[in-house]
Each structure stands twice: as C-alpha cells, then as structure tokens.
C-alpha cells in the first residue's frame, strides 16, 4: 500500500485492489473473517480481534466456476461472489460468517461450506419479521454465534471489548453519514462514484483503519476545489447492492447521485447501534430493525389484518421522505438486479410511494454483467430526458 496515497485516492486504490490490506494483516498474524452480507454483526468479529472482510463479486469477471455449484437463474450477486471465491480470490480468509438475510444468502451458505476449505463456518438465522419475538430469537442466534466465534478465536467476548467495538463501528457509521452531508450542496462535494470506492474500501479494512481513512477523506472533501460538476438532476438510487463504479458512472455521466440507498452506499450506516446493558441485545435490535433491506417483512401495526395501503407504504418507505427533501432529490432510480425477488416485490409499492410524493421515478432491471451497461445507459438517459 503506497504511503503517499491518502483520502479519496487511497480509497480508489483500495477499490482497485481490495484484498491487499487483508493479505498484509494475515501475513502479520491476524485472522480474517469473510462475510457476504451487511446483516452480519461485524462488531462481534472486531471485538475478538478478528478482521471482518466483505466478500464481493466482480461485475467484469465472467462467471465460469459458479455454474458447477449454483443454478444460473439465481441472484447474480451471489453467483459472482461464489465464482470469485472458487477462483481463489478469497484464499486468505480464515472463515465465513453467513446469515439468513435472504434465500440466496441462506442457500449459498451451505455451498460456500462445501466448496471451500476455511477452518470456520457459521450460519446465523434471522427472522423475516421485525417484532419482539423475532428480536428475542435473533438475540439467541447471536449468542450462539458468540460461542462458536469465541471457541475459534480462543478468547472470551467480554462486554467491555464488545462495547468498544460497537463504539468504533458506530463511529464509522457517523463518519459515513457526515460524508453524505457533503452531497447536500449543489453541486455535491463528493460524487456517488467516489462514495462507492470509499464504502468498498471500508469493507476491506479493519474498522479503525477505515475510520482513519474517513477522517482524511472528510477534511479533503470539505476543502476540495475539484469536486463533481453540477448537473440538473439530483438522483436517489435505491436497490440491493451497488458496488461497482461503472454502474455509478452511467448515472453520473449526466446527473449527480446524491444518495445511494444500497449496500454499496448508506444502508449499513444510516442508523446507530444503541447502548444497552447487554450489548448483544443492542446489536440484535440494530441489525434486525434498522437496516432497511427489502428482505424484511415490516408491518405498520403488528398483526395488522386489514388492508391499509397508505399506512403500509409509510411504514416501509417513510424514511425516504426526509432524505428526498433534505438532499433536494428530483429523481429516483429503482435499480433491480435480475432474479432478486425481495427487491422485485418492493418495486411496485415503492413506485406508488414515490408517485405519492411527486418524485419522478423509473424502474430499471439489469443482470450485473458488463453487457448490462449499454442498455442501462439508454434507460437512464431516457429517464433523465423525461425529467429535464
């Protein structure tokens, strides 16, 4: 890692060569824990002095190996993740923590285990509803995870170390939110493309190093004179994962993406783990309740039996209203990765919600391959033409 690179250019460098730091740490004796989804409680990994590392795919890498393990009409994100793993790109991992966030994640968990040789695997079950009984069950699951992780690490997970880890990860969340404050001006001080690189970098570094990087980036961006150009359209992108700058570049050729509600953007950082006498309880509450991924089944009123569409929309998507106002967003793109059922089923309702707010919106489906970029460009440009 070049000592000269700091801030945004360091994030760019890490984005282009994600595993370098993890490999260095491994060589220095640290153990690296892979995770494929934002729902895995990273604080528990950090607290036991293990390094969390998000396993990602590569949109430009043709999927060749995953076909022997996964069906083809299947989440392209998980396919490319597994494909990269089978090609040895995550060889430095000491283990994988998987979680029942959605079906592809659950089903691929066993495949990861069969097809790789990491010394540690743990699958965390997670309920699909967000209610007290579900929370209690999920806490139990996190306590099970704690036991196996302690056994693997050879250390006890004390309340003190867990609280310190929570503070560190919360600090990261605060810093990312502060970074997004800098997309509020017109033009934004930092581009959606740069943020994709930053978030990817954060998912490749230990939390403390990520926080240092973010602190650098904040001071760089606040005083920069070479920020993005002002474009008429200020967009919100909404989808499952957006972790590739080529996709962002398609939007940002003619627009400013000021908010990215995805796993490559703000989703894992928008809220905080609250302090709790039992930190595991605080973690369970944060991960189950606060992450707004389409995988969860949310009800405005628990056990609701009557149809109240408007209230249902408000409870599922209400968090977007304030964002649209504060970031002065004038267009929303609902981006769907082909075969993603949870997000696909949210789209019509979300469209109704956006229409209710009077925000021009469009729905684009793509298959997360390099060939998807040209059709994506046509649709994005046509949408921008309708709102210009």
């Amino acid at each position, binding site marked *: 890692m070049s000592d000269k690179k700091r801030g945004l250019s360091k994030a760019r460098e890490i984005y282009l060569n994600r595993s370098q730091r993890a490999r260095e740490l491994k060589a220095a004796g640290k153990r690296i824990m892979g995770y494929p989804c934002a729902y895995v409680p990273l604080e528990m990994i950090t607290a036991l002095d293990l390094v969390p590392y998000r396993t990602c795919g590569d949109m430009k890498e043709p999927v060749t190996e995953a076909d022997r393990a996964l069906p083809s009409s299947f989440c392209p994100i998980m396919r490319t993740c597994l494909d990269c793993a089978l090609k040895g790109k995550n060889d430095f991992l000491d283990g994988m923590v998987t979680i029942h966030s959605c079906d592809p994640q659950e089903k691929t968990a066993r495949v990861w285990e069969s097809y790789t040789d990491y010394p540690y695997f743990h699958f965390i079950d997670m309920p699909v509803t967000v209610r007290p009984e579900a929370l209690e069950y999920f806490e139990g699951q996190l306590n099970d995870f704690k036991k196996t992780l302690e056994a693997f690490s050879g250390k006890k997970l004390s309340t003190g170390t867990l609280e310190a880890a929570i503070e560190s990860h919360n600090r990261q969340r605060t810093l990312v939110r502060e970074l997004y404050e800098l997309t509020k001006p017109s033009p934004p001080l930092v581009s959606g493309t740069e943020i994709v690189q930053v978030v990817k970098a954060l998912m490749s570094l230990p939390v403390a190093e990520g926080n240092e990087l973010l602190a650098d980036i904040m001071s760089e961006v606040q005083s920069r004179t070479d920020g993005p150009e002002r474009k008429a359209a200020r967009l919100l992108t909404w989808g499952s994962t957006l972790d590739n700058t080529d996709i962002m570049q398609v939007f940002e050729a003619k627009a400013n993406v000021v908010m990215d509600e995805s796993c490559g953007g703000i989703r894992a950082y928008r809220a905080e783990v609250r302090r709790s006498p039992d930190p595991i309880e605080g973690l369970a509450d944060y991960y189950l309740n606060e992450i707004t991924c389409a995988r969860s089944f949310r009800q405005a009123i628990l056990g609701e039996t009557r149809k109240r569409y408007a209230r249902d929309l408000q409870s599922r998507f209400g968090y977007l209203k304030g964002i649209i106002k504060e970031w002065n967003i004038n267009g929303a793109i609902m981006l769907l990765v082909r075969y993603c059922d949870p997000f696909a089923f949210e789209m019509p309702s979300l469209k109704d919600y956006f229409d209710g707010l009077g925000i021009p919106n*469009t729905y684009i489906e793509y*298959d997360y391959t390099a060939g998807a970029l*040209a*059709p994506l460009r*046509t*649709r994005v*440009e*046509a949408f921008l*033409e*309708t709102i210009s």
Partner: protein
Amino acid sequence: MTKVALIDKSSNLISTVKGPTGPEHRQLANEVMRQALEKVSLQIDDISCIVATGYGRVNVPFADRQITELSCHARGVSSIFPNVRTAIDIGGQDAKCMKIDNGRLISFVMNDKCAAGTGRFLEVTAATLGVKLEDMGDISLKATKRIQISNLCTIFAQQEVVALLSRGERLEDIVAGLHNALASRIAALAQRLGIEPDLVLTGGGAKNTGMVRAVKESLGRELLVPEEPLLTGALGAAILAGETYMKAVAASGAFSAKPRRLEKATFFGREHR
C-alpha cells in the same frame, strides 16, 4: 439498421436513407450522411443541427447532440399523430413502449434482452421455415386455424415450428401462430406501462401487416401506423435538432455546431488494413 432523416424548417422530410448497420459505425455514419446529402445536393455545412440517436449514437462524431431513441420516437410519432398517448416500436433487436404527452416522452418500458419480443423472433423462425421475412406478414393473414406456440424462447420456438410442420400443420397457420406469440410478448410489455389512446405502432414490425393484425387483436384496440414506420426515430431526432437550433438562436442569436467534417474515420479506414 441505420436511418437518416433530413428535414426542412417546416419539419418536412426532404431526404432519407435506410440501410444495414454492420460493424463499422463511424465509417457508416459518414457514409449514410453523405448519401442523404447527395440526394438533395446539399453540403454538410448546410445542416443547422444534427442529433444522433439509437445504440450507435455515440459513434456519430459530427452530431451536435445525442438523444435516446425513446425521446426521438416520441417526438417523431407525435409529429405524425398529434394525439398519440402510447407508442409501441417493434424493432429488429428490441421493442419499446412509450407514454407520450404533447410530443414529450413521459415514461417507457423496453425489452432489449430477449429476442422473443422483437423482430428477431420472426427473422429466426422465417429462416427455419425457409420463408422470406418480408413475406411472413402476408402468409399469416391466410391462416384458417389458431395455433398456439407454447415456447417463450426463440430458439425453442424454432424447434416447435419444425415439430408442427412434421405434424402436418399448414404453413399459414404456423406463421400466424408465430405472429400471435410475438404480439402477446409486445402486449405484455405495453400493459406494464398502461395503454391510452391514441395508440401508434411503429418500427420495422409495423411494416408487417400480419403484426399489425396480431397486435391489434392481442391488445383489443385500434392502432395507428405511420406510412414510414422505419423513420419515426430519425424523424424525431431531426425535429429535436430543429428545436435545439431554434432555442439556441432565440437565446443567444446563434447556434454553434460541432465541426462538420465527413472525412473517413481513419482508425477503421482501408489505408490501415
């Protein structure tokens, strides 16, 4: 396919070119432009503003603007049918539905991933049947029996067509079935957007009388078809070029066009071969 449309101040078509695209887009752009100009004895500097559209729009170096084919079709179709609210373009390799209001694109859906909802479906199955693509429409109109093509995929539909032939089904009935299959895909696409009259069908698919019948039947609605369905995209682009020019002149007295050079793009030029 590549098309060029030159219009005058009153948006009348004065010169048009249509031809296969092939692999060398930049060279082709120069070539078709030259042909269009020759037809009306004009020089490229005589053109006030040029808009490029379609998949190859980034490969037209002398274009002043690039606008997506969705907005261009919306404009072009509106200039012919002012009350259009929904337009369906059936192209060789994609299909699009557009919601239009006062000549402006409001919303759209596209299929450019699956051949089964595009002209390619008829090209491929025509080849399997040994029939010329341009004859498929007329043949379909002679059907007397309803045949359902069950396969969603173009490739599997080919196999199904061979099986139907060997079963002794009539060519006319099979061809009508193919048109109905294509029309049902188009209808599914259009219905995602919601259809409001007037409804216009354009693109190569609209030149096929069999397709016009099949889509009309599938949607259960009246269809308007332009005289030159292949040109509505280029026509719309030309009209938008005119508007771009007039707007600039109204705002600042002049429009600064891109350098108008029609030299051969030497990267692909024969000199380098």
